[in-house]
């Protein structure tokens, strides 16, 4: 089991590390070459994609820079999510499968719980992405540089925030789609082959399995995946909102007043969702945070986190007007 996990982690991390090492090496090589050549300052202009030609050059370059970074994030996230979701395909121990008496059911169960246990990783990833989105706008020489160039504050804000948010959501969608496709290709349409009811063979000793079975049969996979997307957006916008909050400026230090809750919120949600047994608490269901086995919340609730995301991001945008660097 451990060996399995170890091996799968290595398979996961390998392309990321390899890409990072290759990228760092090529940057170092280019830097060394530049120092050796000592070329005079003769900048070349690269033509921009036709789509962006309507924008003034300053904004175009800023946008292209951020789209490139977002694409990078997208790739990492797709790979990670696809990997985590398809992991059950390769690491199942058949002993539990016997208890379940239905291999398809067990496979499906692993896939779904893989998706829901993903929340810890999800919240951490969203937290760091949101912080990476907001901090370069508030602190550091890069922030001061862009704030003193002739581009509107709103352009800077929306480019940074939306490029990362869309990259994350698109990455989640791609990862989920890829893993689904893989499942379909390797095991056929499992979700169509689930038994209609709990096998009667299960006795009182298998009460836990029976309970999981029951939950599994009413779980709605599409709702879970929709929930993943809305929860990403919601968490992201909350962290961005908190990170944009006004700063209490003491003589030489700057303390974002609400930074500490930034760390508490996502972990709070994770802990809540883990402790909720076969269903998630009503509060989380209202926010369409549906990350466990059990009946899905009504579809209409999905609009709530979407609306909240819009509200939080708008407030963060308004905060950005008053930020001092």
């Amino acid at each position, binding site marked *: 089991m451990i060996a399995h996990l170890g091996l799968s982690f290595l398979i996961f991390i390998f392309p990321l590390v390899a890409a990072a090492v290759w990228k760092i090496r090529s940057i170092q090589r280019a830097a060394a070459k*530049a120092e050796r050549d000592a070329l005079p300052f003769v900048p070349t202009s690269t033509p921009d994609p036709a789509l962006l030609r309507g924008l003034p*050059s*300053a904004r175009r*370059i800023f946008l292209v820079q951020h789209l490139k970074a977002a694409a990078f994030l997208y790739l990492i996230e797709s790979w990670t999510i696809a990997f985590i979701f398809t992991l059950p395909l390769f690491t199942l121990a058949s002993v539990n499968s016997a208890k379940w008496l239905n291999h398809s059911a067990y496979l499906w169960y692993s896939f779904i719980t893989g998706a829901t246990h993903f929340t810890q990783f999800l919240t951490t990833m969203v937290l760091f992405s949101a912080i990476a989105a907001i901090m370069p706008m508030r602190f550091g020489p890069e922030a*001061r540089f862009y704030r*003193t160039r*002739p581009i509107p*504050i*709103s352009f800077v804000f929306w480019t940074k925030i939306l490029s990362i948010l869309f990259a994350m959501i698109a990455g989640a969608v791609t990862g989920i789609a890829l893993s689904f496709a893989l499942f379909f290709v390797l095991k056929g349409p499992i979700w169509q082959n689930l038994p209609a009811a709990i096998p009667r063979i299960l006795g009182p000793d298998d009460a836990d399995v029976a309970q999981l079975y029951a939950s599994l049969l009413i779980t709605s996979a599409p709702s879970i995946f929709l929930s993943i997307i809305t929860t990403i957006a919601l968490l992201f916008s909350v962290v961005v909102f908190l990170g944009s909050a006004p700063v209490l*400026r003491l003589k030489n230090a700057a303390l974002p007043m609400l930074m500490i809750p930034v760390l508490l919120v996502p972990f709070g949600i994770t802990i809540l969702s883990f402790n909720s047994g076969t269903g998630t608490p009503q509060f989380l269901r209202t926010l369409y945070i549906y990350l466990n086995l059990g009946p899905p919340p009504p579809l209409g609730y999905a609009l709530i986190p979407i609306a909240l995301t819009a509200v939080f991001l708008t407030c963060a945008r308004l905060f950005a007007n008053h930020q001092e660097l």
Partner: protein
Amino acid sequence: MTTFAIQTDALAKTYGLGNKKVHAVDGLNLNVPEGSIYGLLGRNSAGKTTTIRMAMGLARPTSGEIKVFGLNPAVDPERVTVLRQIGYVPEDKMLAALTPRKLLELNRSFYPDTWSDDLARKVIKRLELPLDTAFMKLSLGNKTKSALACAIAQRSRLLILDEPTTGLDPIALDELLRLLVEDCTADGRTIFLSTHQLAEIEQIADHIGIMDRGRILLEGPLDDIRSSFRRLTVTGAALPTTNPAILSIKQQPHATQYILQSSPEAFAQDLAVNGATIVESDPMSLNEIFLELCRTSEASEADREEEFA
């Protein structure tokens, strides 16, 4: 009708709360005429950098007003119009790119109308800026040179330089002065410098402002200021002690030393008419004027605090 590149009206900026309140800028009335080379002088915590940050829209005034080319630099869309016309060297010389070359390439995209590659090359050559050294390996002087190259090559209508001499050796400093005079003053462009380097200011500035504790002590054309200040050593009886022209008086064993801040000829004539003898009459360098003004302002501030205590 002089237009002003930068103008402030009772500008104030306060940080902190309650007892720990800091009045970084405290009722500042600054007037930087367009086409001038204006030197803002002051001690370390006088509030110069805070003022400049407000001119760049990096901070908002607590009260009062600041206008750059008559526009508000803190609120879009006027802010963008203002920034399009400003070349800025901040006090903190950290780079926003991996190498000076990359910084220059990045910066030029923001100012397509006024940027000059030729001027950039000239600055690079004159200041001996290493284009491809990673910013972590750059010395402080080279970081300053990178920021200067970016700002100067923009050929902006207004150059705002906050401590532009940090880390520069005497040769680089000399080259900088030459560049500023040669390439940054044509077409009515304005240079606004904030620095401690009084000697350099005295050479190239035609207007100066002396700032202390968040407000202006003295402002105006440098030639006028230099001709208004004089040090007189006088002997005689019944010498005047109060007169608006007197900045400070020092009693010496056999003479009285006056530091005058306005109409020194009239004062000297007055003395002569009343029978006093002027033993020495010397002009004062900018350094001496600055020191004297700050000392006097500190002394009167201490007196005022004692009164209220």
